[in-house]
């Protein structure tokens, strides 16, 4: 940036200093032939910024308009779930893990029940397993719709969020009919499900798949070809696969870099082994790719739902459990592909009815840890496009 200004003050070091604009104490240093260089400035983004989906705070050191350093400050929503889990039995933990990522509640439950079931060597009834897959995918659609809407909103497009919430509302109604909850379903139980699906659920699901599939095309029309959207997201926040893996980034941000890592495919759990799961990948690893992967994942989930709707066998949805569910002594790590990435539970049991240690390896924690890498060197105006496209939930970061 070059500008000619009259040097007003001389300093011993040889550098000329001019006062900044009125009302600001910042001094602008003028070097040489009137070339401007700015002093570093720290800027607080959040903790209440709408682009942070919760209370994430990012302290940004600015050099001019460029971000020299970005430091996410997390912990504003730390609720000590891991400590609480140590004082609760496994049924209560299902309700607990619902809440760290409130947009992926059913998928969170899956990780815990799978861990306990594997430790207890429980066989889950076929029907329950299929319904779990169905619910997982509906949760994924719900989650992705939320981010499709909000990402558009952050970039100034208001329509997508209305569209997305219209679908979300319908799907939530559907989920509510089966689980009784709108956000926190708590539909899983160790050994199966809380109860069977209500009558008409499958038919309604089928109808809903058709609706949503039609609508995802609308999102594409609204954003994919939108010049402003492209200008703001193309080549912004480019992530390379090696860095992503080294940070443990997963989900859409990883897949956008071209790595087709998805534990539904690479390490199928539940009934995913019997389903052809399509993993959309990007090529460039930028914000645009991350967003398109997200939209494509909605379609992939709808495909899975259609497959499941034709495969759910009749039968029971629960197994008989001992009165007290106790995981045998030992440790297990179960990872599931959550909407936001890989969610894992590392469960250490000492043979009691509550875990000795339950580590929640949440996708958002690793993904947000990578954010400074993306922001460094980026323009301040790109910050929102970067933050918004990493797709995280702050509760999932802080736990």
């Amino acid at each position: 940036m070059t500008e000619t200004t009259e040097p007003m003050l001389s300093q011993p070091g040889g550098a000329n200093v001019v006062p900044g604009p009125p009302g600001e104490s910042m001094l602008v240093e003028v070097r040489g032939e009137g070339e401007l260089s700015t002093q570093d400035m720290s800027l607080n983004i959040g903790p209440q910024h709408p682009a942070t989906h919760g209370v994430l705070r990012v302290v940004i050191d600015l050099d001019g308009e460029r971000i020299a350093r970005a430091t996410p400050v997390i912990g504003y929503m730390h609720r000590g779930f891991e400590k609480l889990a140590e004082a609760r039995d496994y049924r209560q933990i299902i309700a607990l893990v619902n809440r760290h990522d409130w947009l992926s509640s059913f998928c969170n439950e899956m990780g815990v029940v799978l861990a306990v079931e594997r430790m207890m060597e429980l066989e889950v009834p076929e029907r329950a397993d299929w319904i779990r897959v169905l619910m997982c995918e509906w949760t994924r659609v719900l989650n992705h719709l939320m981010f499709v809407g909000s990402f558009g909103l952050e970039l100034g497009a208001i329509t997508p969020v209305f569209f997305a919430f219209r679908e979300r509302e319908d799907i939530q109604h559907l989920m509510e009919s089966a689980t009784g909850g709108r956000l926190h379903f708590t539909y899983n139980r160790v050994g199966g499900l809380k109860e069977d699906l209500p009558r008409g659920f499958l038919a309604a699901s089928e109808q809903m798949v058709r609706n949503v599939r039609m609508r995802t095309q609308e999102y594409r029309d609204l954003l994919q070809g939108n010049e402003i959207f492209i200008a703001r997201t193309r080549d912004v926040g480019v992530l390379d696969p090696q860095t992503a893996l080294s940070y443990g980034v997963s989900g859409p941000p990883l897949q956008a870099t071209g790595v087709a890592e998805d534990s539904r495919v690479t390490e199928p759990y539940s009934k995913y082994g019997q389903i052809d799961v399509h993993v959309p990948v990007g090529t460039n690893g930028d914000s645009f790719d991350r967003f398109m992967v997200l939209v494509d994942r909605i379609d992939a989930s709808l495909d899975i739902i259609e497959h499941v709707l034709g495969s759910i066998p009749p039968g029971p949805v629960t197994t008989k459990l001992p009165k007290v569910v106790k995981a045998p002594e030992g440790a297990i790590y179960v990872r599931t592909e959550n909407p936001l990435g890989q969610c894992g539970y590392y469960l250490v049991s000492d043979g009691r009815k509550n875990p000795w240690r339950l580590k929640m390896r949440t996708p958002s924690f690793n993904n947000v840890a990578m954010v400074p890498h993306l922001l460094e060197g980026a323009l301040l105006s790109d910050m929102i496009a970067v933050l918004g496209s990493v797709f995280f939930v702050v509760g999932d970061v802080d736990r």
Partner: protein
Amino acid sequence: MAPEALADHLLERLGKRVVDHVIQYGQLTVTVAPEALPSAVQLCRDDPRLAFDFFDFMTGVDEREDGFAVITHLYSVRHRHHIQIRALATGGRDEPRLPTISHLYAGANWHEREAYDMFGVVFDGHPRLLPRILTVENFEGFPLRKDFLLMTREVKPWPGLKEPKAVEDTDGEGDGEGAAPATGPSAEDKARMAREKAERAKAKAAEARKRRAQEQAVAAPADSGAGDAVEPDGDAVERPEGAGDVGSEKQAQMAYSTGDDERAGEPEGAADASGEAIAKDAAAGAVGGDTAAGASGDVPGAEQPGTDPAREAELAAGADAQPGGTPGVEAEGRHAGADDQAGDRPAAETPGMVSGTQDVEPARSADDVPAPADDGGTQAPQPPRGPGEEEPRALAGEGVGSTPLADEQGPVVGETYTEDPEQRRPVGTDADDRLRDLETDVDEEDGR
């Protein structure tokens, strides 16, 4: 690579740096020496056959007396295999330290900060562990350590499982647990209930004093016998582990310890009838068990009870009623059996109490107590315990708001009944608990 092949390969490459390896649920966990953690992780990353490129997570685990272990989980996107590298931090519980791996995997930075925040494990060479990542700046303590108690649990009882106790805590400071002030009923109600209770307690205390005077000569020598029998199983070395354990078992254990103390020392001014019963049962259990099983044989007071024929008959009845009442069983239940729920409830005591103290209502038979389905152990009624002791209140806390829950808790169910015959009813309502708080308080005052 399959976990087994992975293990072989790592053992070959790392040699002596591997301390141990376990394959559980198809997952390989390799324990390495603490100083070898970075080199092991580096090998996992750089060896083309391993190629662990995905940093999954890192976490601390409280390993009781051993301090803290740190688990690093890596995954290979290329080979689709996992590994968990475990290293026990040096410096025990006081100053756990490990070398950092944040220069190997960028993601380890935040995970090490979290492990520091939660467990206090210091990672040497980490660029910046502070400010604390999840807790607030001036937070005191490391919340995921087992000796860190949740504040809510310190000030009021909890319907679920009790808070894990401090590992070093051997002196049973459960006092804080039940210390919640009894609020709720009006002052009038309180006063009335207190009066009624005081009367009952006085009557019992008088009865107890009379009986104790009669029996002290008998009980004292037998006590020493019981003490001897306790020694081998319940020596002090065993205690910290039990004390470090989580939960209601620990609570129960503490209560038993209290009973032990009363028994071993002279029962000083114990006003409660049940406390007396304990002392006497110890005698009954010890003597009955010794004579029946001939255990160790060298009990000094073994002959002495024989000088009182009436007492001897009583003791024999107690012993016959429950042949399992050998001192060894009791000792195990009290000291070493913290992880064995059945062992926590000494089988011999209650029948002994019934036969010994005639003024007590018949003990709740085993049938009355809902039997836990999966607990293979002996179902025994709750052992006697003085109303002035801590346990009833703690248990009352456990029952609060958990009536449906208590039903499914199995082994705990038996413990939701208190030993005082007048209180022998399931807990679960607030009114009950408040009443019991009042009652126990009065007993304490009355007794001292």
